[in-house]
Structure formats: structure tokens, C-alpha cells
């Protein structure tokens, strides 16, 4: 594929631009990418990941949603048949609703409502899930030798770990002291 900007060189860089929470993907050659601020790509991605939905390039070339909490994409759900976390149900609502209707003949729960439940989990758990997700990401960028990105993720992990230590000084034991 030719670079969308100069239309001469081969496109080797896929640049994702986010404007007003809309993602546009450009296929560029290295030169044009640089002139359009290619090194800034890292920051761009970093900002993206901190949003709820990450836009990534899927193997087919279209953009695909990935869950911010667990990293699950709809495609990988389709392949495995399992969702990654409760938030996936909201994120993929549009795709899941017809599927649920097909399986169950309905997409609305009318059964048991928890009457008396333990109090909601603390912010700590949410942070720890996020941290686990970042560690997974770090592993994958190191494998793909994207060291700039790895450094960035490592810094985020360190910040989060400090934050966690403040929130939960005896990290490792749940709220029930299990």
C-alpha cells in the first residue's frame, strides 16, 4: 500500500489520529509520518489507553473497540466465546444484544435481584485490575520491541503502584482480610 500523503513510498506506519473522540487511521511512509509528528505517536497511544475505549487497528484493517479494563476485543470474544470482564457487556452492548436475543429469546433479566449484598468494592480493586492490564500490555510491547512505549508503560505502572501503596498499605489482603 502506498503512503496516503506522498503517494510515492510504501506505507509502513499506521498513524491513528484522535479528534473529538473520533479515531482516524492514516497509512503513511516513515518520512511523511515524521513530518506529521510521528514521534508523538507514543503520547497519543498513551492518552488513548487512559480513555475508556482503546481504538486499535484490527487484523482486517478496520478499527476495533477493546475493553479498557481487560483488553478484550469483540473479535477475540467471537473466537473464544468468553467475555473478559463485566464491563465488556456494556462496551459490546450493540453487538451482544442481538446475540443474547438469539440465544435466550430476550436481552433483559427478569430473575433474581440481589436483596442484601456486601458493600461495593473499594477503588483499590479497580486500580489493581488496571495495573494488571498495564503489566500485560508491557509484556506485549517488550515482545514487539517497542521500547519507547515500554518505558512509558513502565512509568505508568510505577505511578500506579505508588498510588496503590497509599490507598492500600496492606495490599494483598482483601477487604474481608481473607
Amino acid at each position: 500500500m502506498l503512503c496516503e500523503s506522498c503517494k510515492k513510498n510504501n506505507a509502513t506506519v499506521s498513524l491513528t489520529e484522535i479528534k473529538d473522540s473520533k479515531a482516524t487511521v492514516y497509512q503513511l511512509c516513515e518520512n511523511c509520518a515524521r513530518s506529521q509528528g510521528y514521534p508523538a505517536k507514543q503520547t497519543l497511544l498513551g492518552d488513548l489507553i487512559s480513555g475508556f475505549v482503546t481504538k486499535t487497528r484490527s487484523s482486517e484493517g478496520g478499527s476495533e473497540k477493546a475493553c479498557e479494563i481487560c483488553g478484550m476485543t469483540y473479535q477475540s470474544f467471537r473466537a473464544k466465546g468468553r467475555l473478559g470482564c463485566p464491563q465488556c457487556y456494556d462496551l459490546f452492548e450493540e453487538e451482544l444484544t442481538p446475540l443474547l436475543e438469539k440465544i435466550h429469546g430476550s436481552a433483559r433479566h427478569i430473575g433474581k435481584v440481589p436483596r442484601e449484598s456486601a458493600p461495593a468494592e473499594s477503588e483499590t480493586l479497580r486500580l489493581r485490575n488496571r495495573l494488571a492490564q498495564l503489566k500485560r500490555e508491557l509484556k506485549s510491547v517488550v515482545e514487539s520491541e517497542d521500547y519507547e512505549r515500554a518505558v512509558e508503560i513502565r512509568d505508568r505502572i510505577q505511578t500506579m503502584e505508588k498510588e496503590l501503596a497509599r490507598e492500600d498499605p496492606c495490599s494483598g489482603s482483601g477487604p474481608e482480610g481473607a
Partner: protein
Amino acid sequence: MTISKLIRDLSSRAGDWLKGSGTDADVVISSRIRLARNLEGYPFLPRLEEEQALEIVRRLTAAVERSGAVPDPIICDLRDTPSLDRLLLVERHLISRELANGEEPRSVIFSRDEVLSLMINEEDHLRIQVLRAGLELDELMSKARSIDDRIEHEVRFSYSNRLGYLTSCPTNTGTGMRLSVMLHLPALVFSKEIERVFQAVSSMNLTVRGLYGEGTQATGDFYQVSNQVTLGKSEEDILDDVRRAVPRIVKAERDVRDALLAESRTMIEDKAWRALGTLRSARTIGSEESMEFLSIIRMGAYMGVLPNVEISSVNELFLLVQPGHVQNLQGRTLKAAERDRVRSELIRSRLGG
């Protein structure tokens, strides 16, 4: 008592629920409810880090102990459990194959009478399983509900107003409830009318599976009939669907048994006595073949053509002839040939060969 000693102990007998008591015991072996639940604040199993999986085991175990939901619980960390013992737990329906073969930190908590079993980190963080002999749906439902409530008092499950209890697989979301009834249907299999029953069952939003659930074979003519839908129906609706369907299947099986007795008594007597003769004489036998003959014997005993056979020993044998049980009883792994020999001895000792 250590877990392995306890498991060794289990290998020589069946749980009370399998002794052949309960309503409609000639056809209905047991009824079971399974509830799928996930702890709020964690990803589902496929995206769980090992550390989180460990934490879930710890938290759920503590919550179950505090709740008193399982009296005198047996807690078994499956990563420390040898594969032979895990196999035995699968054969007894205390854990699923998936849990037995899983890799993440996982465990099972069950009651000594084996009617309650809580699987941690199976396909969902928690699978609550309640069993009853025979067709005792109301009792089963109230028991399952009370256990669920007790545990829910201690922890918070992932729940949405729109979709109910959220599960890793969308086929379980909503009530998270699978109600299944284990049926022994040898006459319907023999008369080749079983397909007709399956068609009728699937038109009632129910599904039929083999002895060990999804994707397993119907060994020994055992079938599990269970609800397919978990969303858009209440627990009571699901109970009603099963309650309507099962007596019809039970009646169909009994009708064929009656017809066989009326029209081909000699043939049925011959089949039953030959099956008993084989099991009383065999010097080596595989588990599948044992199950086939036991199935005919069980039917014959209920039809009154094998007056001196004790139903409870036949029911028990269905369990004891399985590979995990045969080997556990010997206390070691056996090669197939040795297993078949030991199995035949066990059967002869129980059936008076």
C-alpha cells in the same frame, strides 16, 4: 482426616444421593441446580492474572466459611490435588472436567454428604451446585437460593439491572442458573424412540446432554435434561419448564418399559439375566462395557425381572466402575489391562459372582 484419605474413603461408596432413593427413582437419578456467579471488581477467568485468581480463591473460601453455607466443609485446593483424585471428584460430579484440568489457582468446597459443591475459578469465579436424589425441584430450588443468599451476604457479585448476573459466557448470563435432571432412559434408547424425545425436549427450550454435561456421551443410557435459556426468564419460569417436561419423559420411558414387558417379556428377561451373568462371570471388563450391562440390569431390576438384585448396589457400581474410582480404591495408577481385571473383581464382589 487429610483430603487424600478422605478421597480414598469416597472411592469405595457412592454419595447418599445416588443410592436410588427419591421421587421417580426408576427413571430420575438426580436433580441439580448450578448457579454461575462472579465477584465484582475482577475480570472473568480468561483475563484473570494468577495473583487475582489466588485472591479470588482466598476471598471466596473465607466468605463461604463465614456464611455457614456449607456445614462442615471439605476444602480442596485443586492445584495440590493429584490427577487421580481430581478424576474421582469429576466422576462423582463434585467438580467439572474443566475445573479438574484447569491451570489457574482453583479449588472446590463440598459438603460431606456431597449434595453441595462450590467450584472456585471454573468458567466463572464461583459455581454453586446443589444436588438432590430424584425429582425434588422445589426443595432443590430453595436450597440453592439460600446458599446463594448466604454467600451474597458476604461478597458482592457482578450484577447488572439489565442483564442480571454477569458471566464469562453470555449463554449463562441473567439468572446464571442451569437446572438439570439426570435421567436413566434405557428403554427409550433400546426402542430407538430417544430421538423423538430429544426433538420434543428441544421444542420446550430445554437441552439434552450426556452423563458429564456438555459435549459428553450418554454412557449407560444416562441423559441430562436442562434449561437452555438463562436470560428473560425468572428462576421460577425455568423451574416450571423443567417441571413440565420431565414427567412427560419419565412417562414415555415407563410406557416403553411396560410395552416391552407386555410384548417381549422373554426377550427382556433374557437380556437382563445375560447382562447379570456377564458381570458375575467376567474376569476383565472395561468401564463402558460395565456401564452398558449395568444399565440393562438397573432397568431389569425396576421392571421386576431381576428380583434379587439390589438397586442401591447397581447404582453404586455405576460410579465405582469408573477409572478414577477403580484406581483410587487400589491407591495407585493402574495400566488399562490391570484396571479391567480389578474392575471385574469389584463387580463380582458386589453382584455376587
